[in-house]
């Protein structure tokens, strides 16, 4: 594209969890948007499975690299604060993406996780006719996003006296564990609805074996396979409630970073507002969200109007400005 040439900004990315489809897509969105922005010369990605000491070291490495902005998906709400404070002191813009951080003078770009919990709960309550038992499958105990979603979820459920959370478990956002828990817990008649923190389609699959195809409503995220199941199983009475948690929030973070570097005023908190989708109401939208050729855990939302400018092909190409176009096409 024409914009490639003129960029000057150096952007650093610190990601604490690698080899995960969602995070890979997030990084790709950063790269793709950086390339399209035309203002970025180089994106340095430091993405690996590491603890907070390791991620702090990565942040410090990025400082040493002389980047202008750091986009950080932090494994911990506060543990990287000392390193981040050093970055801020060095004049580097720090943008937290996906997971919020408590460090001052930083910008947050993220899904509104409290709303995420709430809209899913509202839709679930409705799908359950405001009564029955809920299997509540959370993320990782202690994680920031999980705590926020819990706040939203509970605020809604508390309003309906006939809705009961009879079972609360943590999946650790681990698909294997989520599937195992669903298989263990979904005895016929035990629950009338399931809320998941994004570990969704293993639950639907477990219903096929454990409930012999008698589906109960499930709240999930915009995982490709879940989207597909919501569409294909709708005729069999399955109500899938999709609350998107777009991985391309990374692209939004990049835009905010560039805006900040450009000297524009940027809000400290930039939240995406998720809405719950069901096949009954949003058939065409849901159909358009399914990508047969993509991974089961691919986050299906591929554009955030106002934030991202790439199209699907550009996102999948996953190309940073400094990459040689030949080798990555």
């Amino acid at each position, binding site marked *: 594209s024409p914009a490639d040439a003129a960029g000057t900004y150096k952007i650093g990315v610190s990601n604490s969890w690698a080899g995960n489809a969602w995070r890979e897509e997030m990084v790709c969105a950063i790269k793709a948007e950086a390339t399209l922005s035309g203002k970025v010369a180089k994106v340095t990605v430091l993405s690996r499975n590491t603890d907070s000491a390791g991620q702090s070291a990565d942040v410090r490495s990025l400082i040493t690299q002389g980047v202008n902005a750091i986009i950080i998906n932090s494994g911990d709400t506060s543990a990287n604060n000392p390193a981040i404070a050093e970055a801020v002191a060095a004049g580097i813009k720090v943008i937290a993406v996906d997971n919020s951080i408590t460090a001052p003078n930083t910008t947050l770009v993220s899904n509104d996780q409290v709303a995420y919990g709430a809209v899913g709960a509202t839709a679930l309550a409705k799908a359950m006719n405001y009564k029955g038992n809920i299997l509540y499958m959370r993320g990782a105990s202690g994680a920031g996003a999980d705590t926020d979603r819990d706040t939203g979820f509970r605020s809604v459920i508390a309003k309906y006296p006939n809705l009961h959370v009879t079972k609360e478990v943590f999946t650790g956002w*681990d*698909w294997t564990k*989520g599937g195992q828990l669903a298989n263990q817990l979904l005895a016929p008649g035990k629950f009338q609805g399931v809320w998941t923190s994004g570990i969704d389609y293993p639950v639907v699959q477990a219903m096929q074996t454990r409930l012999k195809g008698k589906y109960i409503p499930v709240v999930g995220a915009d995982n490709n396979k879940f989207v597909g199941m919501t569409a294909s199983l709708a005729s069999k009475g399955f109500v899938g409630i999709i609350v998107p948690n777009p991985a391309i929030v990374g692209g939004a973070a990049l835009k905010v970073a560039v805006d900040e570097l450009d000297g524009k005023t940027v809000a400290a908190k930039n939240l995406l507002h998720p809405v719950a989708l069901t096949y009954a109401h949003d058939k065409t939208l849901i159909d358009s969200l399914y990508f047969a050729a993509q991974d089961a855990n691919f986050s299906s939302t591929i554009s955030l109007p106002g934030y991202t400018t790439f199209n699907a092909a550009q996102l999948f190409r996953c190309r940073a400005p400094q990459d040689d176009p030949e080798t990555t096409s």
Partner: protein
Amino acid sequence: MSNILKKVQSRFSVAMLSLWGILFSLFVVTGLVDHYFFTISSIGVTLQLAVPLGLLAAGQTICMLTGGIDLSIAMIATGAAFIVSIKSSSGLGLAILYATLYCILIGTINGLAVGLFGMNPLIMTLGMNAVLIGVFTVGITTFLKGSSTMPDIIIKLSSGSIIDPISWPFLLWIFFGGLIIFLLSKTGLGRLIYAVGDNATAARLAGVRVWKVQLAAYIICALLGGLAGLMIGGQSGAVAMSLADSLVLPSVAAVVIGGTSIMGGIGSYTGSIMGALILTVLSYLLATINSSEAVKQMIYGFIVLTLAWTYSKLTEKS
């Protein structure tokens, strides 16, 4: 003379009996905590969920009997699942062939390193696991790019039930489990696996090419790991980098609870099967009790420790 014989036999059955006792009491406790547990379908699902752990434990049993351990089994399983799920678009047979070759390759490298070059198995397989995580992290964005969806037939084989509580994976386990028990107790290779684990020097002096036995052990272990990977992937329908992570340490625990010595030379797959069942019922119990994640972790660790302890005390005394 018959006295000592009897003692030896009773020693063996005390161990086995105590495992049955533990399993039974856990079973009852779980049923009391969650009355849904005493349904045929819950028992079926428990047996089904025990299959991947049981298969991983089978591989681990063989490695541990030779005095080794395989911690790369996590990425062997994950890798096999990735390969099958991504390559199945170009034909299931081919995908399974690739996955088999992958398992054989990794098993061969592990086996040769341990057998021929005398690498410490713990370090070798830990290192191998790290390498494989890297390879697949790079792979899913390059040479293994594509949609990772488990083929329906594998989903069926790993979670489809025939008539409750009998499921396809359970039948598969009976088949492969029987094969492993047969291998260990009725074949020449089985004899050598025990011999090498008990005293590799002695086995060598008796003319055994020890490295071949170790090679065979790590290859068999890798193949079982790959199969377990497919089962795990099929059961959750998802393939992710962390696919088998949560089962690796339990697979070691299952083998030890089942009475196989981590030093090698003594133990059986029957014990490991009991270990796998015990840990699966335990995980069901933990899933159903209403307590914080913190307390669950503590209970899990505490019970594993207690089990290993009681078992070793029971067998030591007699």
